[in-house]
């Protein structure tokens, strides 16, 4: 025992000098997502047994707490070696513009990743000629969930367009379903539903134009998004602001509502927690008007400038982008691999269908999950949605969004 302590102490002292390195990774994966991260950590330790891996997890609130801690650490000049961040503008608009990240293009080239990830994906991870993070997983945001047996009972089918959705809503209301569509609170479920409605209203190109500045938020087409969103909100449950996304999903499972638009983590919740069988216990379809487009979000890791253990961090990123790393992590996390060559036999029925879409659909980035807009915009946008839900003023919401976009530098 004493000897072991001595060796440990000696290792700690000579840790930086010897081959035995250190690696600190920073994430908000805990609880349900913990095992997936643990599996990755285990894999890393197998490959690099001499490295002392420090797993710095800050739990809670979809990363809210972790991001606040990360900011204080970065501002204090003590960056972790690699940290979790939503891929896209959340990283670029926050850390890349501040010149705090290293360009990973050479890593992409040396590992041959340029051809392994979908073509539409790389531009969404890049800016100023650099690629800034390695996506570990992919989640789909524009999914509509339902229970097939209930739809059959009510005699309706999953609507394909927003107009059909509103018509179905009227039919269901006539049959005594008070809230045909369920939604949770405004912390993220409501803006989440907004982005699916927006994509369904504007189409893939219109959605991309909105964030490249080609289409103004005050354009009549963009105002129509708010009108549509208001009509959809009229079909939702009155107690939405008190429900988490899980409770909103419960409403569908219990047959109180017919549809719910949520990300594909809802599949994990329904399969694991509610014990429903994918395909028969619960069904899914692209959110109305968005068939053929995969609205994605992705957890990724980047390399901050000034990382103390740069080599070990690069090895970590290599592992994350590898086929083995992605296929170890994603089946446990309930997401799919960002790579298009993953081993689909390891995934469940829903994930297999999502992976097929990932390889064939057009790809668009999620707004509320950080792909197409920076944190200034997403955080202010939550407030605008909440305000709209109160006052239902489409023009005011459109003007406020445009003002916010200007302030946040969207489309610059």
């Amino acid at each position, binding site marked *: 025992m004493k000897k072991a302590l001595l060796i440990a102490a000696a290792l700690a002292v000579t840790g930086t000098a010897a081959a035995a390195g250190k690696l600190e990774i920073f994430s908000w994966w805990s609880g349900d997502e913990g095992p997936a991260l643990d599996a990755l950590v285990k894999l890393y330790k197998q490959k690099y047994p001499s490295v002392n891996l420090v797993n710095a997890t800050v739990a809670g609130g979809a990363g809210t707490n972790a991001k606040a801690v990360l900011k204080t650490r970065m501002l204090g000049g003590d960056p972790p070696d690699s940290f979790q961040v939503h891929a896209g503008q959340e990283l670029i608009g926050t850390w890349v513009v501040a010149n705090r990240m290293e360009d990973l293009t050479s890593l992409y080239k040396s590992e041959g990743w340029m051809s392994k990830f979908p073509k539409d994906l790389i531009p969404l991870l890049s800016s100023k000629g650099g690629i800034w993070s390695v996506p570990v997983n992919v989640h789909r945001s524009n999914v509509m969930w339902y229970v097939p047996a209930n739809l059959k009972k009510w005699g309706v089918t999953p609507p394909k367009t927003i107009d059909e959705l509103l018509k179905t809503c009227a039919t269901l209301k006539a049959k005594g379903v008070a809230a045909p569509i369920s939604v949770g609170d405004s*912390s993220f479920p409501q803006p989440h539903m907004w982005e699916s409605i927006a994509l369904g209203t504007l189409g893939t190109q219109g959605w991309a134009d909105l964030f490249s500045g080609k289409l103004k938020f005050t354009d009549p087409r963009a105002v129509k998004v708010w009108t549509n969103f208001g009509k959809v909100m009229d079909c939702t449950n009155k107690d939405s*602001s008190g429900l988490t996304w899980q409770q909103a999903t419960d409403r569908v499972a219990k047959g109180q509502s017919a549809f719910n638009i949520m990300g594909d983590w809802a599949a994990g919740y329904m399969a694991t927690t509610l014990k429903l069988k994918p395909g028969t216990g619960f069904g899914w379809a692209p959110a109305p008007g968005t068939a053929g487009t995969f609205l994605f979000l992705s957890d990724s890791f980047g390399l901050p400038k000034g990382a103390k253990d740069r080599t070990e961090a690069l090895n970590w990123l290599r592992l994350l982008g590898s086929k083995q790393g992605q296929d170890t992590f994603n089946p446990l996390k309930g997401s799919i691999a960002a790579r298009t060559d993953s081993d689909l036999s390891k995934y469940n029925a829903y994930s297999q269908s999502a992976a097929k879409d990932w390889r064939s659909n057009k790809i668009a980035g999620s707004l509320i999950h950080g792909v197409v807009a*920076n944190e200034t915009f997403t955080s202010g946008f939550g407030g605008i949605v909440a305000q709209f839900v109160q006052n239902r003023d489409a023009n005011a919401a459109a003007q406020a969004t445009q003002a916010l976009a200007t302030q946040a530098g969207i489309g610059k």
Partner: protein
Amino acid sequence: MARASIPTKAAPRRRSFNSDRLWSLVVLLPSAVLLAIFVYGFILRSGYLSLTDWGNDPAQALSLTPVIKFTGLSNYSNLFGGLLDSRFRQDLVSTLFFTAFFIVACLGLGLGLAMLLDRNPKGEGLWRTIFLFPMSLSFIVTGTIWRWMLQPAGGVNALFGLDPDRHAWLTSNASIWRFDWNKLPLITAVVVALVLLGVASRARQSGNRTQMWVAIACAALLVLWAFTLGNSVKMTPVPEYHGFNLAFIGIIIAAVWQMSGYTMALYLAGLRGIPDELREAARVDGANEWGIYRHVIFPLLAPITLSAMIILGHISLKIFDLVYAMTSLNNLNTEVPALLMYITAFQGNQFAKGAAIGMVLLILVAAVIVPYLASQFRRSDRS
């Protein structure tokens, strides 16, 4: 005599160097230094940052060497009149309503419980503990319990079979007593004028005629300004309505549950401190039970009411954790400025604006605390 006065004068001087004094200085110094840096220094720094543009440009927000420009009061003028910050204004209105209801309910319930316990019921100690117990919980725990109890389709609604649509404790979208934010100068002027009239009537009672006339003149001037020039002041480009969001009812219930035991304890101590002779004297003079309370006990409890109001007032102005636990972030129906400050600074990366919200909160809390501290200092000077 002159010679004798030398040692008495020298004695305190020598005492200032004795070891007791030295020790007290040494012991106090670390906390004084830490307070100076981590409280007052950071207040000054936040105050300065609130006058800059740190975070308006995302490229500078989190840069290692951010370029921060001094922009004067622009953050504040945006908060009170900018198009994008109506959220802050609603939060401010919400927090004032919340504070008013919270304090009134805590004082009322606390006084009621204290008066009941003062009648020495059976098992008084047990009751006292039961009522005081919620205070030992943290707001996070209280919030979690009450979030669960006030759920639309669970908790009390399920227990008593209430219709969740009509009893939306935390989820109501309705708001009452709405007013146009542009009328704020007018409302403020009228409120201040009313206070001045109160001062005037007091001055009349105490026979101070000049003070009375000055107060009346000021009030008249304010009202005149409000209805002429003040009426044309436009705070926001478009009319903007704010009111009391009914979703706060749930939060007020939880907060009152937590803190009314505390006011009960304060009042109970006050009631026990009133000598029985006073009540008996009042009874001999022919006062009935209500008269005793009205003319003897309540006036004696006034200082306790004041300190309870101060404590509760500053708690409610800076409340964060209770609301965070009960309705989470980005819920406009129940948002308070402290939550918005967190969201603005740590989600939106707008550090200067976050600092400005913080300063507004500090000023609000100071407006409650400072007069109280001043009166306390004066009192201890007198004694």
